[in-house]
């Protein structure tokens, strides 16, 4: 009897994972015993129109994607409570669910809804968190679900959730020799993509301002790279660099007042700081080698960058006030495009070993290096604002796609691409 149940559970999970593939491929490589089991019960719905989104499913997908949770499949649930008094704790203990998320959606009028949710501890039978009367528009249903995911994630892990964040990325579609390039923004789960810029010439290196209101990117115009700054809400933009030679790799300072950029106007690629208020340039590096791919340290005092001044490309750090340079990476045949976790503890790079390019994580305290990915031609790593995940570009079945790996290397998933090549992901900051 018990065996049979186990078997059917396994079968169900297999079926469910098959279904999930259509939307988002989740391959969790960590041991299942480390995952926190919880059940997100389908939310009760009361209203005239069809429910705009399956809120519970979005929450479940969010939490599963974090790689820290195991969700009890809906088909195994013995009841679908939406209020705490209807929760039969014995059933959920039997399903080995430590927590239950229940809730309801109520339609108020044509476009307004109200959401209630409750997070309940199965063992203690106590309410961990309860919210009622969350006002939501039909178009904001996904936002509400991500908001609830953030709440649950924070309560159960102690870390701020990053489900309400967004991503920038570049797609190239159409004729491969002359594709159409589109800079797009989407939810962190890849849903609700919107085109920000469309061009027949390449777009690269998108990144966010500290508050997520502005973006910066490189776009070719008349066969030359230019750097743009653009306000997301209005689409208003400014060209900030169109010097002779390279204009590249823009990176916003943590205080939002400056941009680190790369220019070769003085002969070879150097890092400059562009002050937004004064529109003035301050040259930071001075070396005949390639200096590029600047990224700010979280405190804004230093910039890490790629340089081949030692022969092959490695990561260096420059102190902005003294302009003193020190080498940071020593392992691997080369290291490029460094990004630092928000706490400054880890450095993520693209490292080459035996001809393979992978995302590597270096502990800034003890220098220990871990290779996080095992996909093909990995590049453009970008770290979630809570420091939990790294999104990067890779090649899968001969096509450019986006993938995500947790900073401990255990959780991995791919983001689906509808058509064409996807590249250059940039994870947004938190939106306050």
């Amino acid at each position, binding site marked *: 009897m018990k065996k049979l149940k186990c078997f059917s559970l396994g079968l169900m999970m297999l079926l469910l994972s098959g279904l999930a593939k259509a939307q988002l491929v989740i391959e969790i490589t960590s041991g299942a015993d480390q995952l926190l089991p919880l059940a997100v019960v389908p939310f009760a719905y009361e209203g005239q129109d069809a429910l705009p989104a399956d809120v519970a499913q979005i929450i479940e997908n969010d939490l599963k994607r974090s790689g820290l949770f195991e969700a009890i499949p809906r088909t195994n649930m013995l009841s679908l409570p939406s209020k705490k008094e209807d929760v039969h704790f014995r059933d959920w203990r039997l399903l080995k669910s430590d927590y239950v998320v229940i809730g309801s959606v109520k339609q108020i009028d044509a476009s307004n809804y109200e959401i209630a949710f409750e997070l309940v501890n199965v063992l203690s039978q106590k309410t961990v968190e309860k919210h009622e009367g969350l006002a939501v528009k039909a178009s904001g249903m996904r936002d509400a679900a991500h908001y609830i995911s953030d709440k649950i994630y924070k309560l159960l892990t102690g870390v701020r959730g990053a489900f309400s964040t967004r991503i920038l990325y570049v797609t190239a579609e159409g004729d*491969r020799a002359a594709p*159409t390039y*589109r800079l797009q923004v989407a939810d962190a789960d890849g849903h609700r993509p919107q*085109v*920000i*810029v*469309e*061009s*027949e*010439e*390449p777009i*690269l*290196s998108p990144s966010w301002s500290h508050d997520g209101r502005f973006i910066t990117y490189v*776009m*070719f*115009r*008349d*066969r*030359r*790279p230019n750097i743009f700054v*653009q306000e997301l809400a*209005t*689409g*208003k*933009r*400014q*060209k*900030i660099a*169109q010097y*002779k*030679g*390279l204009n*590249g*790799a823009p990176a916003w300072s943590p205080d939002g007042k400056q941009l680190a950029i*790369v220019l*070769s106007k003085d002969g*070879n*690629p150097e890092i400059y700081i562009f002050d937004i208020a004064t*529109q003035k340039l301050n040259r930071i590096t001075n070396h005949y080698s*390639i200096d*590029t*791919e600047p990224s700010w340290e979280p405190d804004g005092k230093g910039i890490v960058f*790629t340089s081949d001044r030692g022969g*092959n*490309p490695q990561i260096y750090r420059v102190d902005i006030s003294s302009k003193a340079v020190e080498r940071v990476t020593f392992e691997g045949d*080369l290291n*490029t*495009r460094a990004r630092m976790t928000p706490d400054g503890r880890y450095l993520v790079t*693209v490292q*080459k070993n035996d001809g393979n*390019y992978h995302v590597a994580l270096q502990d800034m305290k003890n220098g220990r290096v871990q290779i996080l990915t095992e996909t*093909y*031609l990995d*590049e*453009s790593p970008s770290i979630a604002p809570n420091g939990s995940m790294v999104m990067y570009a890779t*090649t899968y079945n*001969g096509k450019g796609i986006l993938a995500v790996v947790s900073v401990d290397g255990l959780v991995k998933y791919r983001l689906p691409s509808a058509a064409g090549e996807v*590249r*250059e992901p940039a994870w947004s900051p938190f939106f306050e």
Partner: protein
Amino acid sequence: MSVNKLGKMAVIGLSAALIAGCSTTATETDTSSVSETEAKTVAAESTVANSNDSSAKANDESFGANGNGDLSSVIVDGNGNVVSADVAAAAETAAANAKDMLLGVAHVFYFDFDKSIVRPEAREALAKHAKYLVANPDAQVVLEGHADERGTREYNMALGERRAKAVSRYLTIQGVAAAQIESVSFGEEKPLEFGHNKSAWQANRRVEVRYE
């Protein structure tokens, strides 16, 4: 009917010239946000920016149209209406000379992985480009450097530029004025071959010589 058409063309030409005037200002603040307008703006500006300095170098462009992309051929078509007859004739002779000088000469030069050294087999062809540029001091050349897909995009932008500069040095050593040469990089953004293998990578590590 035909007069009407001509009138329309003149208006288009005039507005293009006006836009060209605008686009030369150092920092622009343009507010185009919708994707489709964007594409049009980009296309319009690229044509305009080229036609801006095209009158001086009509001869090079007709040559450029020969071996290069549709951009320059668009300009040649568009300029037919504007350029006066004698200038056009002079351009034609110059173009013919240029064509003779660089007939069958390679425009694409290849590089080793992570290297920017001009290969020995490239020297003969590059010497011919140098000779042409020295003989035509008004000619402008753009050296477009490219990298293969491996490695990060901005580093490859730098690598592509380094390759273009290596070719540029080779030309200046042979007496070409530095002012005639511009080095730009496309990094890994514009591959010639799309495979993920050694032969595709080799084909993509290149510098293309383009006359403006």
